[in-house]
């Protein structure tokens, strides 16, 4: 592993040193328009990170449930979309509400049967949700088999926006409609969630319960209902993420694992107290990944970003955006 990381880290240097032809290529790749294109497309990565991390920001950030089954809720959303397209021939956008409701119901059942019994015991929750993720993967595999599944992207979202073209008319800086669509969905969901949390009485109840459960109970808040509703909402958001990315990525039972790590990095980097933190976390991780990967390569960029997150958490364990609290 170390050997692998080292050799891939050295490969650009190796290319520069060994092959004159490759040197030319590297120089060409540094052209400004290519970099601008990469930065713009980095926002596409940011959008996906934001979308997939939003559900976790609720279940972990707000409720403090160490939810290792988050990736599997994303997968459930993707499979609901696949199933509805397959049986009812529905447009992808039409399936989004069903993905939300479907995963939210599963989330509510999980809260009612497992999570509820484990509040205040983070380690047990960790093990329980990890077990749950294995069970969910197994169940989906039994129903839909291990084969990769095909989800059709809406035809009106194919093509892209060209911001800059060369003389021949081929785009130099462009981003596809679908990635733009993902960014818009992610920002809209973030705005809706923030409104729900900071602008409605339901949101006030949630914050009251997470800050002081027994006091909220004394004041007549139905904490059990609030807990279930919040967890279900977080899972529903993960379901939407799964539905939206299913047409750009791959739908398969283990797909959630990939997003789980990224989502955790985003939530932890951004800070768990404020929802706006995940916007900053997603932006930092997405763009630094995109830019580093452009100059080096993908695996190296991931190693560097992960290392940077570890250093950041060492010095700011509460993440970038924190609220001063009395303990």
């Amino acid at each position: 592993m170390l050997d692998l990381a080292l050799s891939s880290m050295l490969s650009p240097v190796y290319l520069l040193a060994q092959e004159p032809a490759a040197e030319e290529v590297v120089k060409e790749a540094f052209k400004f328009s290519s970099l601008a294109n990469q930065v713009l497309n980095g926002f596409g990565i940011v959008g996906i990170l934001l979308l997939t991390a939003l559900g976790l920001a609720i279940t972990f950030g707000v409720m403090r449930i160490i939810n290792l089954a988050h990736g599997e809720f994303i997968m459930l959303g993707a499979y609901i979309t696949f199933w509805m397209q397959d049986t009812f021939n529905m447009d992808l956008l039409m399936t989004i509400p069903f993905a939300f409701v479907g995963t939210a119901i599963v989330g509510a059942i999980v809260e009612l049967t497992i999570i509820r019994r484990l509040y205040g015991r983070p380690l047990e929750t960790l093990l329980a949700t990890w077990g749950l993720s294995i069970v969910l993967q197994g169940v989906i595999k039994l129903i839909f088999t291990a084969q990769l599944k095909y989800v059709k992207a809406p035809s009106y979202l194919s093509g892209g926006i060209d911001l800059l073209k060369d003389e021949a008319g081929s785009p130099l800086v462009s981003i596809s409609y679908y990635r733009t669509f993902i960014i818009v969905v992610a920002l809209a969901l973030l705005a809706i969630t923030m409104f729900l949390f900071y602008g409605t009485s339901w949101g006030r109840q949630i914050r009251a319960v997470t800050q002081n459960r027994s006091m909220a109970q004394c004041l007549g808040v139905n904490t059990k209902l609030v807990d279930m509703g919040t967890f279900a909402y977080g899972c529903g958001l993960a379901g939407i993420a799964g539905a939206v990315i299913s047409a750009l990525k791959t739908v398969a039972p283990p797909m959630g694992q990939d997003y789980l790590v990224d989502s955790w990095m985003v939530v932890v980097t951004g800070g768990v107290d404020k929802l706006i933190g995940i916007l900053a976390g997603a932006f930092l991780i997405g763009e630094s990944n995109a830019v580093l990967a452009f100059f080096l390569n993908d695996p190296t960029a991931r190693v560097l970003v992960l290392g940077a997150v570890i250093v950041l958490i060492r010095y700011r364990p509460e993440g970038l955006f924190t609220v001063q609290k009395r303990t």
Partner: protein
Amino acid sequence: MRLKGLIVCVVKENKIKMSKSPIISSGFSRRKFLQYSSLAAGTSILAACTGGGSGGGDSADLGENPIKVGVLYSTTGTIAIVEKSLQDATFLAIDQINNGTGPWEANGAGISGRKIQSVVVNPNSDWDLYNQMAKRLIDEDQVVCVLGCYTSASRKSVLPVFEEKDSILYYPVYYEGNECSSNVFYTGAAPNQQITDSIPYSFENFGPKGFFIGSDYIYPKESNRIAIAELEKAGGQAVGDEYAALGTTEFITIINKIKAASPDFVLSNLVGDSIPAFYRQFKDAGLNAEDLPIMAYPTTEEEIQAMGPEYSAGHYTSFNYFQSVETPENEAFVSQFKEMFGDDRVTNGVMEAAYIQTFFMAQAMKDILEAGDEITTETLREATRGQEFNAPQGRVKVDPDNYHAYLYSRIGKWKEDGQAEIVFATDAAVKPIPWSQALYKGRMCVHPVPDDRSDPTKETGKELVPEFL
């Protein structure tokens, strides 16, 4: 048998959890820690051992003295998507041999009356578990040989086991070459049956500049190294060489680098669930197959079906077999496979290799039993050398010298319906050469008769020319 398998898992998983747990277990008692780790071990067993040890679907009466054969494919984890289909193809072949149907019709049910008992294990896409499961199959289940493995990483993991214990592995996958073991029969493509034809084809039809991509592990890196050497030999040039972590589904950076380098074609050695994501994002980023075709090795009918044929139309794959190959054997294979596993399934080249190697094995066993011998590693090895079979792809043969298979070399252009139009094919099966002649000029592999397991490599100093069956 199942219990033994569980114990292997318990021991392994417990070891891992024991070492991991203290990191997260600040300030809770030793007793609780033990409870947690046994719980953790319990869930892992569920994941790793489901389906382990059972005979694959054929619980029918196996008669007296069945022949025990190990089947080593992952049905859980990241590689399960591919390996499950290899397992399916293997089960189809075993079913046909046991019941005397399909290509085995002339031989009657079983191998000289004895049936095959498959001992199925699931290594959960974990390279270390392949090693342990191989040991278990050989030592505890006493199988005569093993059919299995997909990735080169898993093959490298089990290779020392088969060599040390002197048992036989039938390996059905196109691979990077540079190997010639007395304990492995390689029935997938060697480099010269896939790379050596596809690179000159790309050079002539698309242009001299190639961009090479792949998943970040041994097969794609070695395969691309050989392909780059072939391209340079043909007079072309590699304008990029990029790798993505296994299982990655975000390719916008690599696609932007491809755009910046403006190559004439892209050579893809991405594997598994990365493939559909890459083709989709490739088209989504405004690149199309007419201006910039992708030539790929691991992209087969299965992945095309998952990405949607509209994303693959116009791109190319180089393989020995396509579902659209027109032979009576293939027609029968496709319909028998669909009959057993469902109409919506497709067949592909790796599955075909998994299918034909089971028949190579069965034919060799039949020869041994008819000669009145016992099936042992020595007799099976000698009997498998030179076996011929009318495969779905055409007539193929196990090379008696280097234990690889004579296979057809084909290039398919994907159509709108998800099937390939074959644009290049050799007239007969090509003799396998395990070492790329662009990198290791003149190196060949000849096992002595009978095989005494001495070093089989020979340096001729002269470039080996293609030979046909």
